[in-house]
């Protein structure tokens, strides 16, 4: 039942429950901290070289079938002239939204936010494959697993590497250390320190999803009007 309580906190119930607890007006971010860790990730686009080692590592560690992928590295059009051309890279994967549209729409509670870690995950058993979550995700990172027929996506290796106390496979495999993973609630964690030092942005933040995927932009001052 833990995910339904989670939903309750994140959803309408929050007003009533927290009003009685005397902390009305606290943001959802704070309510989600109650149970402990809150994992997030940084993709440093200035360090990424587009080698896609992360993509392969993820597939292997999480047994992701061919034809679908939990993450993609999207390469931009070349910037500049050969031989000095370079590219920008964008990581397309679950943002682990704090106000997650996929969780909000799911009719069965199969999509949930794990309250111990803040990780957005799917109970494959509970999922009926209505695809509402896939439509609702503004980042278009969800898919139907061709084997289980359930919705699936990146879960920060919650049941694989993380369960073994290791860093997510993509983070481990990156030769550039372009990926930083850690607990946003821990002020001494590498991720919090990096966030304090670097300029970051979050994708489609205006939709109110509160994504926990942070990005260091590799933009060289070009403004298109």
């Amino acid at each position, binding site marked *: 039942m833990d995910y339904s309580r989670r939903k309750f906190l994140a959803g309408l119930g929050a007003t009533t429950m927290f009003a009685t607890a005397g902390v009305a007006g606290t943001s959802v971010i704070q309510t989600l901290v109650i149970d402990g860790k809150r994992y997030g990730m940084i993709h440093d686009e200035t360090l990424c070289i587009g080698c896609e080692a992360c993509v392969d590592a993820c597939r292997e560690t999480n047994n992701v079938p061919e034809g679908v992928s939990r993450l993609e590295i999207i390469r931009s059009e070349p910037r500049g002239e050969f031989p000095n051309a370079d590219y920008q890279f964008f990581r397309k994967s679950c943002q682990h939204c704090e106000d997650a549209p996929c969780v*909000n729409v799911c009719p069965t509670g199969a999509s949930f936010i794990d309250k111990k870690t803040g990780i957005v995950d799917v109970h494959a058993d509970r999922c009926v494959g209505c695809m*509402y979550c896939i439509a609702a995700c503004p980042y278009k990172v969800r898919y139907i697993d061709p084997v289980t027929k*359930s919705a699936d996506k990146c879960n920060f290796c919650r049941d694989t590497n993380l369960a073994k106390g290791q860093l997510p496979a993509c983070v481990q495999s990156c030769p550039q250390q372009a990926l930083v993973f850690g607990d946003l609630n821990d002020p001494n964690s590498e991720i919090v320190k990096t966030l304090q030092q670097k300029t970051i942005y979050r994708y489609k933040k205006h939709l109110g999803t509160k994504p926990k995927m942070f990005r260091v932009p590799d933009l060289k001052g070009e403004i298109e009007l």
Partner: protein
Amino acid sequence: MMESLQQALHFDSLVWHWPIAIYLFVLGISSGAMCLALFIKWKLPSAEKAAKNPLIKAAAILVPSMVIFGLVILVFDLTKPLHFWKVIVYQFANPTSVMGRGVTLFIVYQITTFAWIALVFRKELETLLARFMPWAMKILGILWLWDLIAKVERQLEFVIAILAVLLGVYTGFLLSALNSYPLLNQPVLPLLFLASGLSSGIAATILLATTFFSANAKTSGMTLSHRLEQPIVWSELALLIILIIGMNFGGEMDKVSIDAAISGGFWAGVFWVGVMGIGILLPLMMNQITSIKVKHSNAFILSSAVLTLVGVMSLRMFILYAGQMTPA
């Protein structure tokens, strides 16, 4: 042409396909037919007449069968159809899921509308039961149940009216809950779908009543149906205009999305020809320029009903597909 049709029906950001449009379409018919049946019954002098009225008969068939049909489509559209029961068992796991609340609504709506139908056609059903299952009347205490429902008839009808309206707006909320697609994430969508659902419900009821229960222009309730149709079509037109203008006043993606939808390509064609032309303007015009005599002919009644249905189905397809063309 083939290639552009391919592109119009298959693109990357498309998640929900045409079965969902049919699902939304038939639920709208059920909602509209129920509202119409209640209106007519309230206007009729006695309950006795309600059971004989072709429009009410047609609605009594459409209301439950369309919901069941819609649910069958939904179940087979799941990637795991055999697990559909989880949607019912776990429907309250996520109290704010529009689809979850839809499931709750279907259940309550189906039970209450069946009770209402049983009440309206009590005599007929009793005769049937007495003939084929005389034992059922005694064992199941059905007569007692009937009396109970009869006592709360007014209240039941009031509740059903609300549920039917909720079913109509539900079809819109299901899509407007998606802030991942600007054209779907519009507050007028539930109203637009309610209005078009009413249109299609009235049209389908008239169609069935005329073809199967020999209704014609003189059937009581027919004039009322036509009188209801007019303002509903006008409000659909108004809501569509509000949607288009409103999105042009909106943010960047609102503008991009409405522009992509209506100003070129296959779905713009569906919108201007199917939704606007066939579904709204043609019926409005036909109503303006034809004489009373023509209007009272069955051919006219049937053809305007068909036009309306084509228009409403086009609207469902248009919103679903054009909506998913542009992600936020």
